[in-house]
């Protein structure tokens, strides 16, 4: 089935996630969709699979315009999507999951469906027991189940959104074989990824998205540096970083192993010293968040040690990290940082270090006014934090930190902020590094990483490579983020 998207627009509030995307995928091909986080890949694919409806634009299947009101309708017309996180029912058996999506029948013919399922599974060399509980399957097997289910429902266009993030190398090979087989059968596969190597290996043609627009379409094979340029743009500037003297190590990760259900960072060692700024790069979910949260005492390491100012803090509670001078600034400003429904003054009173029984509201208000001025925040003490702009919320988070943290851990400190806010925040932070604060931050903005860090760690699939910010280039960084140089 031939898929055409014409001039697709999709807004989320003020974010223009798809700004006029036009894309054509020929029948029976394996087409790659490449782009960094937030480039608009997932949005575009959700539009194509009926999860989102576009604000503007047209979808054509085999030349006929279609519009979906739901994912089920898209499946009926032949378009199915495999999501990054499996959308199945872990408490049910494989066969029950299969039957749940079965349209239009009140009475279920378990035996017939079971035979069909077994045939499909055998065809793609997927091995698992139809009576097993889905919760007992690996993520890879759950994907296989979902693919089988979509095919069984008659899907002729299969979209896979970052399918390889959580599966083993072995299962990846199996998946790739299955995808090739599908195209041989005349089915169309759209493979969404940020991994250069996979896209290069697997796809016949690749479309690159950046900031909601198509920045290039190339037939494979194609040199990776060209793809990187299309993904990240071409700005190459000369980097300057003021020289702040580097002091004693504050954060020491000693063969740290930390993981969650989908990813593990194994045996990472890192030292961050007074006055130093270390940037963590990589696409979302490559391991940098795990390292960040383990350093903050929010995630218990599975192995190795975390030292703060030479003191072994491994496995200690978060409060002790706070007391040791570690400050963590989460990415979700209103989710994990500030408290919606409370005013600036109330926040100021909450983080007051001394422990009086009574809150002195007059003093809290004065303190708040002083902080607001000092950090150049557009707010009044009585302003509710949710009414602040993103930049002002970010500065509020900084203002609420204890003065002169020894180690400052920040997730995406300037995400979504304009140039001016970004400059003012880094100005503040630079001042702190001069008085000895060590900074570890994650960012998806390569320029920010290169501009602000002394060193960078690029994460890919849980592994990390170290770069010196003084002689690293945007291309190197981009390629590393896409997986070049990793095993």
């Amino acid at each position, binding site marked *: 089935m031939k898929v055409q998207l014409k001039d697709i627009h999709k807004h989320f509030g003020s974010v223009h996630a798809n700004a006029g995307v036009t894309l054509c995928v020929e029948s029976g091909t394996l087409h790659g969709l490449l782009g960094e986080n937030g480039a608009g890949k997932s949005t575009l694919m959700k539009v194509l699979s009926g999860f989102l409806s576009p604000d503007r634009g047209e979808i054509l299947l085999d030349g006929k315009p279609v519009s979906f009101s739901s994912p089920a309708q898209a499946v009926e017309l032949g378009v199915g999507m495999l999501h990054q996180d499996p959308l199945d029912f872990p408490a049910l058996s494989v066969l029950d999951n299969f039957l749940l999506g079965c349209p239009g029948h009140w009475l279920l013919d378990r035996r017939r469906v079971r035979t069909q399922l077994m045939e499909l599974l055998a065809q793609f060399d997927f091995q698992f027991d139809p009576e097993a509980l889905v919760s007992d399957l690996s993520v890879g097997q759950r994907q296989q189940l979902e693919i089988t289910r979509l095919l069984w429902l008659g899907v002729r266009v299969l979209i896979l959104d970052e399918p390889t993030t959580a599966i083993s190398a072995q299962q990846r090979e199996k998946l790739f074989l299955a995808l090739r087989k599908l195209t041989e059968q005349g089915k169309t596969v759209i493979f969404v990824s940020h991994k250069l190597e996979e896209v290069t290996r697997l796809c016949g043609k690749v479309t690159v998205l950046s900031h909601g627009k198509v920045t290039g379409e190339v037939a494979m094979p194609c040199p990776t540096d060209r793809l990187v340029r299309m993904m990240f743009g071409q700005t190459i500037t000369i980097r300057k970083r003021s020289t702040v003297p580097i002091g004693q190590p504050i954060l020491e990760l000693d063969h740290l192993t930390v993981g969650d259900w989908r990813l593990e960072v194994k045996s990472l060692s890192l030292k961050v010293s007074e006055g130093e700024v270390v940037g963590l790069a990589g696409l979302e979910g490559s391991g940098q968040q795990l390292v960040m949260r383990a350093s903050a005492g*929010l995630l218990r390491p599975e192995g190795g040690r975390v030292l703060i100012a030479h003191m072994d803090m491994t496995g200690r509670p*978060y409060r002790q990290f706070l007391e040791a001078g570690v400050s963590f600034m989460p990415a979700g400003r209103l*989710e994990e*940082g500030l408290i919606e429904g409370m005013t600036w003054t109330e926040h100021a009173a909450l*983080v007051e270090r001394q422990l009086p029984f009574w809150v002195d509201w007059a003093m809290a208000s004065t303190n708040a006014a002083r902080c607001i001025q000092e950090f150049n925040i557009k707010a009044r003490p009585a302003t509710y934090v949710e009414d602040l702009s993103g930049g002002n919320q970010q500065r509020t988070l900084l203002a609420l930190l204890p003065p002169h943290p020894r180690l400052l851990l920040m997730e995406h400190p300037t995400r979504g902020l304009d140039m001016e806010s970004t400059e003012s925040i880094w100005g503040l932070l630079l001042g702190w590094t001069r008085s000895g604060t060590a900074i570890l931050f994650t960012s998806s903005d390569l320029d920010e990483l290169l501009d602000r860090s002394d060193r960078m760690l690029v994460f890919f699939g849980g592994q990390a490579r170290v770069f010196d910010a003084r002689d690293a280039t945007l291309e190197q960084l981009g390629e590393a983020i896409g997986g070049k140089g990793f095993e």
Partner: protein
Amino acid sequence: MGFRTTPLLLRIVAVAGALLLSGAALLLIGASPVDAFGLILSGAFGSPSRLAYVITAWVPVLLCSAGLLVTFAAGLWNIGIEGQVVMGAVFATGAIQALQNTLPPASVLLLAALAGLLGGALWGVFVGTLRFYGNVSEIFGGLGLNFIAGSLTVYLVLGPWKRPGIGSTSGTQPFPPSLWLPAFKGFHVSPVEILLGLGAIAAIAVILRGTRFGLQLKAVGKNQRSAFLMGIPIERRMLLAFGLCGGLAGLAGWVLIVGTSARHNLFPLISSGYGFLAILVVLLADLNALWSVPISFFFAAIAMGSLQLPLQRQLDSSLGGVIQGMLVLFVLITQGLQSRFIRQERR
């Protein structure tokens, strides 16, 4: 969200709607709404002794409301408050039984109050412990503990604490009048009760507004994750909230044992739904301490006034509960519609 922040017009609509629908329910069973509402009013305020009854029913609701203001501030649904009232009554009864022959009555009453406070607080902290260490939602944990507390009273009343000779579910042996709270002459209300109820609400209002604990509770209730990252020990704060609420509920249990309208003994179902009524009060008052005072009074008046229905007409006193429930539903509905309307406008 609550009565306080709803625009005046909507509040009137809500109250009118509740009365209309309750009236319709009355018509359905062939009674005159005007007559029934009149009876409730005169039943509540018709004579000084009736007003006294309303006031004595008001106090336990006030105490429970004060406690619930704390748990609601922390974002917790303390459904277990009924059980906490019961445990307060059980502990208070136990203290009185153990001490009544050895200490002067005033000391016995005071120690019984402390025992009631302790009993309720322990039962409350138990709910919190189940939540934090057993991963049991406070709603289910509280509900389960309500049943256990209720069964415990039945066991005590029929077993260890049964009346000499005949053990019956009508309760334990009543305490002598020396262990009743002293009432005004000619107005059967104890100043101790009133001071306790109003004092509790005032104290909670001050704690929530003016102390660091209150501020931290508010933060925990609005966003646990942010509060945790700011370094607030959220579990300890929540346990303390449960303890405080349970303690006040336990005091309500004590009032139900020794108060002026009490039967002066322990009997099954002693909590009489006052805890649940207080949940409605606090919801309607939008978690505002000041507003819970008149609203709880109003609810107590409806509850006591409707007792006249079966006495003077062939109507069931549960009509009072119908009106109370309708009120809360209507206020919540108008608010729900209002916020939905506003959200749509924003889109």
